[in-house]
């Protein structure tokens, strides 16, 4: 995999430069909505939509934006797509929208998205920006879903709402509370580092 090649730009966000495990960006939604598998997945999809659309728009219009106003321009573009995603979820999936609460509108200030605009989309062409955005949001989503899986299993005894453990299981309430998110995330970050070191 050559640095700068299309496949590299896509894959880097999934593992090597994973936004959650390596860059530790966007911690607020990661900690808050990874309490169940469904919430984690829905959040990941919302971020995917916003990141892909914003990266496409920004990389297309990057030449006409004066650098002095680039941040406000990025924020307006991001906010537009976040609001569209929020309205869509409220119309089509009211239950998910309710469960995610304020965290959908808060994608506007999610640093993963702004960071990708500043560090990548404003310097690369739309094709590479699309691959970068897809890779980063898939990287974000799989970590959220896996976190949700562990926390939901131990905190509720269910997976995606289906009961896995019988009535003998005493739920670990700490897992659905913020400390559970920190503990699980810490273990994940450590594991990722360990595997990276082993595989070089």
């Amino acid at each position, binding site marked *: 995999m050559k640095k700068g090649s299309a496949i590299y730009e896509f894959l880097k966000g999934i593992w090597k430069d994973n936004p959650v495990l390596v860059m530790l960006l966007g911690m607020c939604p990661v900690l808050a909505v990874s309490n169940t598998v469904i919430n984690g997945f829905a959040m990941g999809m919302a971020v995917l939509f916003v990141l892909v659309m914003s990266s496409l728009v920004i990389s297309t219009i990057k030449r006409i934006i*004066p650098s002095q106003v680039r941040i406000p321009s990025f924020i307006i573009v991001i906010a537009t797509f976040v*609001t569209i995603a929020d*309205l869509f979820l409220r119309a089509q999936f*009211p239950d998910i929208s309710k469960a995610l609460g304020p965290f959908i509108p808060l994608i506007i200030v999610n640093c993963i998205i702004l960071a990708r605009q500043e560090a990548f989309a404003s310097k690369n062409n739309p094709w590479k920006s699309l691959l970068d955005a897809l890779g980063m949001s898939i990287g974000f989503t799989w970590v959220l879903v896996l976190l949700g899986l562990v926390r939901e299993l131990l905190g509720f005894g269910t997976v995606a709402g289906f009961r896995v453990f019988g009535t003998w299981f005493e739920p670990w309430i700490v897992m659905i509370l913020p400390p559970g998110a920190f503990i699980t995330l810490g273990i994940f970050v450590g594991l990722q580092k360990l595997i990276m070191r082993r595989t070089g």
Partner: protein
Amino acid sequence: MKLALRMISVLTGIGLFSGGSLALTYNATIRKIEDNERKAKELAAKEVIPGATRVEETVIDRACSYFKGYDEAGNLVGYAVMNAEPGFQGNIKLIFGVTPDFKRSTGLIILDNVETPGLGNRIVEEPWRAQFAGLALPGEAVKGTRSAENQIVAITGATISSDAVVRIINNGLAKFQEALK
């Protein structure tokens, strides 16, 4: 000067584009969103008024409104009151059924809450909520065992949330009776 003009025109352009696309999305979704909210409320109201197949909402204030429940034949079978007030960590929004003589509650559904999961959050659980069906009003939360018709047993470790639910119901009932006068 040239740069200032360019900054202004680019930001204006992006703003116009953003506003336009949001207006379109809003128009396309708002009806569905309001529909969803109304359906969720009406479904809850029908559930707490036994025998109701049709409900009519009357708004009292920003946090509180009541529903009249009718059966198939169009007879009034009961009321439901929706009220929201602070609980332990944030607002608890709930809806409860009231008999036509205002003396008893006929059921309770918690619509929104941000109480502690595993403790205060247990107010949404069925066995606890079941205490509100047939409860004499105004209610009272007690520890241990119930000794009067208007008492419910508070959740162990979540007295504040349990008290809050009862308080929200009592205040909602008062507002509702005031509004009916």
